[in-house]
């Protein structure tokens, strides 16, 4: 695309996005998105579903701009609870708890929140430019992926889940497998068979992500902290400034850049790409750091990288939707729904037949990011203040939000019972020093891996060699094998030493 074309397109986009009406809708979306991102439980998909019918009464550009605002607003908000109370709001913030919460415990919650917002903003800007400039070629790249490649990518993602563990690698391995198994509970979509449901009808659709997270992270956390003053030696006494220091910014700069690029690419892959963004970034940062042992103990790169990655992925995941009419995830499916409600048929013609809509959306993405950082940075002071609430009161508030969050998903009290069970399980894991993050990642990736594995085998007519024959798939598997070896090597050496000594 010629530079002059780019400018005229962007000019068109901004003229659409910057009308008072559309700016208002953008703001609404951002606000609602942030609010539900912070509230554990209700996520962007559920909110968009709730608001979808009402968007019918808005003009199409306004409707889509608002829906988009909800989506990336939720990304900004989800990291807040992850950092402050070890409760990831979204699957993309699971990794943020690893170092974000540790930073909060060291009195650096403000810095963590700020770097998350700043990194996300940077990523959002870059991603917006990427979409404007290179949407069609990027789509072509995404089209190179076949089911076998996705399957191997999921395997690589699972290895990342092990690598990012801060404790015992073997235990992390076990937790990943356990998580994958939990992810398979429910109905097998391909055949309709039920797996591990024990006749409980609430399990027919599988274990919900939200009850699992609320139980393992939320409930278990208050169980562990309520009487253990040592463990929760929180922020209350030592808030060391609300903003990141220059030192912090310098350290995070490269992480933000790397996260943006990594997330930007992964977001384009329809079907599971964006999920990987945050923890691929974390793994990358951990491997590249001069002192990897800092990770898991409050390394700011562990927040900066993943947060940038997941925001970049959130934006680039619009690309397949805008250029081909193919949604990369449930949120994009909602966006397409929003288009269809206005009678706009999604597909390659949207770019040419409705350039105002296309470029308007891209321009409003940037505007949305701007609004979000303006909204979020000042609120950091408010959030940090909230941490000063004594734990005896904080714990009951967290309990309530977990319960209502889960209940509000399907108006189901049974699901609240689940979090009680997962809470006990989570405490048990804590006592056994088994980290829940790898379990959650396994839970997310396991079912995806199965879908792609089956599709790959079906298409290859039963030939398992397809995973090695396709170059992309082979590269992912080799990378996974290398990483796994690097991570397991010290353990093997240790075991050999022990064997020799004894």
């Amino acid at each position, binding site marked *: 695309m010629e530079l002059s074309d780019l400018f005229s397109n962007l000019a068109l986009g901004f003229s659409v996005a910057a009308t008072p009406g559309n700016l208002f809708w953008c703001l609404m979306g951002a606000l609602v998105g942030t609010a539900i991102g912070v509230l554990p439980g209700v996520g962007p998909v559920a909110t968009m579903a709730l608001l979808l019918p009402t968007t019918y009464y808005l003009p199409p550009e306004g409707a889509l701009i608002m829906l988009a605002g909800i989506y990336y607003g939720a990304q900004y908000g989800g990291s807040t609870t992850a950092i402050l109370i070890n409760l990831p709001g979204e699957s993309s913030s699971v990794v943020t708890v690893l170092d974000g919460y540790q930073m909060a415990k060291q009195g650096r919650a403000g810095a963590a929140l700020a770097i998350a917002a700043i990194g996300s903003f940077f990523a959002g800007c870059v991603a917006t430019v990427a979409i404007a400039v290179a949407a069609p070629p990027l789509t072509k790249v995404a089209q190179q992926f076949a089911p076998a490649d996705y399957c191997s990518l999921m395997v690589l993602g699972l290895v990342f889940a092990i690598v990012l563990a801060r404790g015992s690698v073997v235990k992390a391995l076990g937790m990943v497998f356990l998580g994958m198994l939990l992810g398979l509970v429910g109905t097998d979509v391909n055949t309709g068979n039920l797996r591990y449901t024990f006749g409980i009808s609430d399990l027919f659709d599988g274990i919900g992500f939200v009850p699992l997270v609320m139980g393992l992270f939320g409930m278990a956390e208050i169980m562990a902290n309520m009487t253990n003053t040592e463990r929760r030696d929180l922020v209350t006494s030592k808030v060391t400034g609300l903003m990141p220091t220059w030192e912090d910014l310098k350290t995070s700069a490269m992480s933000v850049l790397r996260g943006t690029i990594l997330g930007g690419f992964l977001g384009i892959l329809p079907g599971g790409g964006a999920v990987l963004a945050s923890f691929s970034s974390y793994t990358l940062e951990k491997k590249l750091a001069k002192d990897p042992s800092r990770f898991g103990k409050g390394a700011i790169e562990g927040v900066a990288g993943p947060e940038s990655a997941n925001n970049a992925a959130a934006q680039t995941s619009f690309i397949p939707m805008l250029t081909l009419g193919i949604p990369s995830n449930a949120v994009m499916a909602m966006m397409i729904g929003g288009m269809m409600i206005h009678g706009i048929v999604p597909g390659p013609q949207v770019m040419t037949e409705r350039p105002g809509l296309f470029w308007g959306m891209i321009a409003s993405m940037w505007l949305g990011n701007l609004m979000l950082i303006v909204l979020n940075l000042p609120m950091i002071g408010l959030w940090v203040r909230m941490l000063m609430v004594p734990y005896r009161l904080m714990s009951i508030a967290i309990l309530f939000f977990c319960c209502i969050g889960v209940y509000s998903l399907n108006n189901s009290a049974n699901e609240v019972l689940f979090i009680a069970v997962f809470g*006990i399980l989570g405490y048990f894991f804590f006592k056994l020093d088994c980290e829940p993050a790898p379990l959650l990642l396994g839970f997310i990736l396991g079912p995806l891996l199965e879908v792609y594995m089956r599709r790959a085998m079906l298409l290859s007519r039963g030939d398992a060699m397809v995973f090695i024959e396709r170059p992309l798939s082979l590269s992912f598997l080799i990378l996974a094998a290398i990483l796994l070896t690097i991570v397991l090597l010290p353990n093997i050496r240790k075991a050999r030493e022990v064997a020799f000594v004894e």
Partner: protein
Amino acid sequence: MRVKGSQDLAAGLMFVLVGALAIRIGADYPVGSWQRPGTGVLPLILAWCLIGVGAILTIKGMILHGPSLLEGQWAWRPVIMVTLAGIAFALLVDEGGLVAAMVVSMAICALGTPETRWKEFGYFTVIMCVVAVIMFIKGLGMPIKVFPWN
């Protein structure tokens, strides 16, 4: 034989147990063919992987020094109280309404720590109830009863 690292041992046994159960329960799931892998393929693979990892951990727990399971305190009181609080919420919210569910569950949870100051708890709970009703029932329009008699 002295167990050197009971934490690892326990974790290992847990994995082995889950893996074994998964195989036992999933024994009837069809495995399909190479071209159409069935319902039971991945669960079986995972179950064996779990048993493998569990075995390694169990051995490690027996021969290598590691943290003890009994180290530190087990927070029985919070665990029981928080769990009961969650159950209470679940049982009360549909019939008893949001306020009843909140008050009871939060009270049970507050019993989980000796730090609770009941007067403070009272004020806090009232405020939380008001905020919750405004946010969730009026604001988001959730179909929950406020009081048992609504």
